[in-house]
């Protein structure tokens, strides 16, 4: 029972330190040949916190005559802690290498007991496998992993969709309470930050546009610039990025914490499908709130643009309003709306998947949250590029 022994040892060590009262200053040692033996004299206080700890050199036993024992003299030894043991361990290993006979029994008993707990030869750490640079293998592996992930996310999405259909028929595993709490976290709670960001984006667009358009005395077109940019791109992308950081990260952290706490295992053992119980409400919440937040973002963005134009440029409110309506055909809204729906579903699915795949330690929760945010943001921008190409092809 090593734990109990060690407790005893520590107690003995403490006791010895209290009993020894001599304060001899810096820790010192020296080797002294005598008749038929060699004496190692230890003196001073060996306290790690006070520093200046001596080393035992590898050649320390070179002058010891063959076959003669090495003994210790500890009469002048003051207080000591594990720093002395560390020194003695070094000395013991050197003695072993040089085939010197060490009379451990001449040490104080508590020091000897501690020394006995230590292995004679410290284990050599296994050498790490040499890291080879294999670009082809790495690219291949990355491709396989990525394809695998795409497959897993799709499978999960399909399972969640199936769970959603079952819920419509009334045999679902999703609880309304969970859906409601996810909806409120992904919707109303995000209004403020989505509003602030989109207002500023709209204002910035108006600033940038006004500089150029003013040269042509086309100030009024700031309205259409802001409107088209917000509705077509900025509101959808900015809102998705905010939600990836806010809600996606939260989903990944929540699910990976559940994983670490065996809560996911408990669900599986009960036969409660994770896809419809846990993932479906999260994805539904994002897929439902994201388009609404998008519309809200558009409105606030245009408001930001109007605010700047009204103050900086010579644009009347009615003119701005009229120009905005002129510039916006409905299909721009439809396009942005569909985009934000896809972004919401994408963020929901990937962050849940990353949470489920995470390891089971506290560090893994952080890694999962970071990863979900990164994948969410990069994915949203990549998807947006795909949408831009599609829009170009079908001519919206």
């Amino acid at each position, binding site marked *: *029972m090593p734990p109990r022994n060690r407790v005893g040892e520590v107690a003995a060590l403490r006791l010895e330190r209290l009993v020894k009262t001599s304060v001899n200053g810096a820790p010192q040692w020296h080797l002294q040949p005598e008749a038929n033996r060699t004496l190692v004299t230890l003196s001073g206080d060996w306290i790690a916190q006070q520093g200046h700890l001596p080393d035992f050199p590898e050649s320390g036993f070179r002058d010891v005559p063959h076959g003669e024992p090495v003994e210790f003299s500890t009469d002048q030894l003051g207080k000591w802690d594990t720093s002395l043991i560390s020194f003695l361990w070094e000395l013991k290993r050197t003695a072993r290498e040089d085939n010197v006979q060490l009379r451990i029994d001449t040490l104080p008993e508590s020091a000897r007991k501690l020394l006995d707990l230590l292995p004679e030869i410290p284990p050599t750490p296994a050498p790490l496998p040499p890291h080879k640079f294999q670009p082809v293998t790495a690219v291949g592996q990355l491709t396989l992993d990525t394809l695998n992930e795409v497959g897993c996310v799709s499978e999960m999405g399909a399972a969640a969709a199936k769970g959603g259909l079952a819920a419509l028929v009334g045999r679902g*595993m999703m*609880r309304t309470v969970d859906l409601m709490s996810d909806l409120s976290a992904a919707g109303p709670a995000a209004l403020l930050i989505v509003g602030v960001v989109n207002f500023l984006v709209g204002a910035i667009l108006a600033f940038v546009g006004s500089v150029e358009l003013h040269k042509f005395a086309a100030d009024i077109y700031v309205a259409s610039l802001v409107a088209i940019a917000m509705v077509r791109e900025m509101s959808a992308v900015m809102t998705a990025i905010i939600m990836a950081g806010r809600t996606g990260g939260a989903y990944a952290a929540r699910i990976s*914490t*559940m994983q670490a*706490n*065996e*809560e996911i*295992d*408990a*669900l*599986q*053992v*009960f*036969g*409660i499908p994770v896809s419809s*119980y846990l993932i479906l409400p999260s994805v539904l919440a994002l897929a439902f709130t994201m388009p609404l937040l998008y519309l809200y973002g558009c409105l606030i963005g245009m408001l930001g643009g109007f605010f700047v134009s009204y103050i900086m440029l010579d644009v009347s409110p009615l003119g701005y309003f009229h120009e905005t309506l002129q510039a916006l055909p409905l299909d721009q809204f439809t396009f942005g709306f569909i985009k934000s729906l896809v972004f919401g579903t994408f963020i929901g699915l990937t962050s849940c998947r990353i949470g489920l795949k995470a390891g089971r330690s506290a560090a893994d929760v952080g890694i999962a949250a970071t990863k979900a945010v990164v994948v969410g943001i990069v994915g949203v921008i990549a998807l947006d590029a795909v949408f831009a190409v599609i829009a170009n092809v079908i001519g919206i």
Partner: protein
Amino acid sequence: MNNQMPSTDDRPVMIDVNDVTLAFGSRVIQHDVSFQVRRGSIFAVMGGSGCGKSTLLKSMIGLLRPTHGTYMVQKDNYWSGDDESRVRIGRRFGVLFQSGALWSSMTVGENVALPMQMFTRLEPHVIRQLVELKLGLVGMLHAIDQYPSELSGGMRKRAGLARAMSLDPDILFFDEPSAGLDPITSARLDELILNLRDGLGATIIIVSHELSSLFHIADDGIFLDADQKTAIAHGSPTWLRDHCTDPTVHAFMHREQLDSSSSHGNG
């Protein structure tokens, strides 16, 4: 070598594990493990830390597919069927996880109620009544509206036990029930387990290395060894303590240090 308790038990076999091999990738955790658990017995899976006890339990509750071997729950082959059949068989299981694994977003009462809400068509007030009954059995009725984070370790385990019983399973799995509990709480949990077995007639499989509790409650068991990666002894903890001659088992059961020269080479 004397490492198999002579069996006089004629209760019907509830669980039959035959030549099961468990591995993560190419790393074998345990190989060729075979044992039978009879109805109404408290079966202990013993062994030192890291020998694969919890992994074996994981595979028995359906979280890890064995690479080889069969696992029968009465007449059903657990791993040969599809997901649906596994869920159906798994409905007979109740599991108490090491940390309790209560769903942290729900109160204790909701935790116990959730499986019933999912899998039965009971009225809400009947469910509430059953939840109160189950929490009452484990002495946790006072905590019905508390969240898991507000509970102590022992309370979480007891609440986890109530949840494990929520669908009235006839096979209960306990993963280190007394780990991290003080002796009094742990003794009370032992008493509770015995009462549940006697009262509900459940079959209980318990993973533990808590000797005092094992001697007290278990009437059959298996000893897994980390070095040989397989079962090295079968029998109740008391029998293994008194009769088993395997040095590892002997040292384990008597809380002795293992003489390193004799721990190997007795396969």
